[in-house]
């Protein structure tokens, strides 16, 4: 596990293996860390432990609609957003218009999922740094969202709910009431979280001025989502390249400001997620108000979709950042090539660049603040 390398007369460097089974790597990520005392001189991430050949499977499925369950399993904590992205890509390719009611339900579900995903992210981030209590608080809230999902789609984690051309089934009759009730009770909980975790002085000491990601580096690495916005870049695909019906809603894009430390540090990435949950609440409220009560939730899409040759790169804003699907179709009923550009994969590649020179214990904070899901990194 530990290897000591001595170069000339310099101090010995130590190579330590962290993971793949390690509580703070959020899954099966292995890091080869070179240390000079307590200081990290180099990090080499090794990924692929969870590789399941998603792209090969997609080519081998005999139907486009059969790919949806596999997209769920990429980022298993925000499955709705993955399905949403895939459905949008296919609808763009086939020029399918989706009814207004479906768009509203999709947006509400996607924003609920965003809240659930961010709750998990901030909860486990606190847990990595030794704050156990907030984790339990956020899981109570996440549970309520999962209950809504269970009532609507029948599943709690992997939904297979949004399909090409519509939804698997209509929402249950309590959906509007439940969701409105959730948003009403959830708002005060964000304030509670701010008191419990965000402005806790130990938490600030562990995260402020740690793992600073400058704006230019973030753009060059194509970071996206809260990682990019934490560095002060106002970039959100829901605003900058609107898809679905996001252009109808009024919401802000929270960005990092270097409030307690330097712009682009771990705390900034964290606080962007907290503020984003508030914005998601705003979107849900507006969508609930304008959602049509009646209407078909399935378009007249054939069971077996046949396409013409074509190509599309479609991107959506998943909780972790830009989720892109690059689909090449041919005359058959399955994709010729399907590439998923997943935000975690790209965000993780910035880790060696921002952890150089930090303390070994800060490396845990940096990984937590990037918020990776290994299912999505390895696909």
């Amino acid at each position, binding site marked *: 596990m530990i290897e000591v390398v001595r170069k000339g007369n310099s101090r010995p460097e130590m190579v330590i293996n962290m993971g793949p089974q390690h509580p703070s790597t959020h899954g099966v990520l292995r890091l080869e860390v070179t240390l000079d005392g307590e200081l990290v001189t180099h990090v080499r991430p090794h*990924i*692929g432990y969870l*590789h399941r050949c998603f792209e090969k499977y997609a080519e081998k499925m005999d139907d486009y609609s059969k790919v949806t369950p596999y997209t769920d399993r990429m980022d298993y904590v925000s499955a709705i957003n993955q399905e949403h992205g895939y459905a949008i890509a296919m609808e763009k390719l086939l020029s399918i218009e989706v009814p207004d009611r479906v768009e509203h339900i999709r947006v509400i579900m996607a924003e609920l999922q965003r809240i659930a995903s961010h709750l998990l992210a901030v909860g486990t981030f606190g847990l990595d740094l030794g704050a156990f209590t907030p984790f339990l608080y956020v899981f109570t809230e996440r549970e309520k969202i999962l209950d809504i999902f269970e009532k609507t789609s029948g599943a709690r984690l992997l939904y297979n709910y949004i399909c090409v051309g519509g939804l698997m089934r209509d929402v249950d009759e309590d959906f509007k009431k439940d969701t409105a009730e959730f948003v009403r009770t959830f708002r005060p909980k964000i304030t509670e979280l701010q008191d419990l975790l965000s402005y806790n002085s130990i938490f600030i000491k562990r995260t402020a001025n740690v793992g600073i990601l400058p704006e230019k580096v973030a*753009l*060059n690495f*194509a970071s996206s989502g809260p990682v990019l916005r934490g560095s002060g*870049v106002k970039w959100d695909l829901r605003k900058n390249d609107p898809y679905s019906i996001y252009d109808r809603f009024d919401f802000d894009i929270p960005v990092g400001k270097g409030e307690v430390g330097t712009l682009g540090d771990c705390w900034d990435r964290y606080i962007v997620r907290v503020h984003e949950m508030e914005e998601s609440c705003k979107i849900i409220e507006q969508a609930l108000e304008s959602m049509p009560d009646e209407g078909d939730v399935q378009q007249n899409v054939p069971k077996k979709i046949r396409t013409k040759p074509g190509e599309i790169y479609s991107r959506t804003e998943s909780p972790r950042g830009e989720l892109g699907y690059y689909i090449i179709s041919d005359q058959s009923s399955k994709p010729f*090539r399907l590439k998923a550009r997943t935000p975690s994969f790209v965000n993780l590649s910035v880790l060696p660049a921002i952890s150089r020179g930090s303390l070994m214990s800060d490396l845990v904070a940096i990984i937590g603040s990037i918020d990776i899901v290994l299912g999505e990194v390895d696909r």
Partner: protein
Amino acid sequence: MSKTTQELFDYLNAAFPEAELLHESAALGDSWVSIPADAWKEIAKFLRDDQQMRFDTMMCLSGIHYPDQNLLAIACHLNASEKGYKLAIKVKVPEDNPVIDSVESVWKTADWHEREAYDMFGIEFKGHPDMRRILCPDDWEGYPLRKDYVPQDSYQGITTKYTEVEESHD
């Protein structure tokens, strides 16, 4: 105002008249610009630094295999966050000599994406600082996303092929 691929192509073609660029499209979806492999790196730098273009991020780089034409290719999707342009680019190389210049020094995203294309398609990127497999183990044989890929029978003594185990019924 956002520009279409056609407008971006015209501008690029005027800047590189001898590079034999092509503007291509299919029946559905978006069109793309085809760039010969030997001009790719130079054009990539131009796309990033030119004041009219400023493609500051590469969103995605994917490998593609065209078995009918014996070609391997990469598709790059670029984004200019300031001007709001998007551009798709394809670089095609023959199957028997799949070497493309690495653009890792232009956009850092290409680092892991090029490793993935190498891992899955066997496309080699010249000038990449760390050309290793990324998702498969280092000693894996073959390139899984090629259309003619046949999985190896065993990996380090472990059978890789799935065989149905016959159940005994009493």
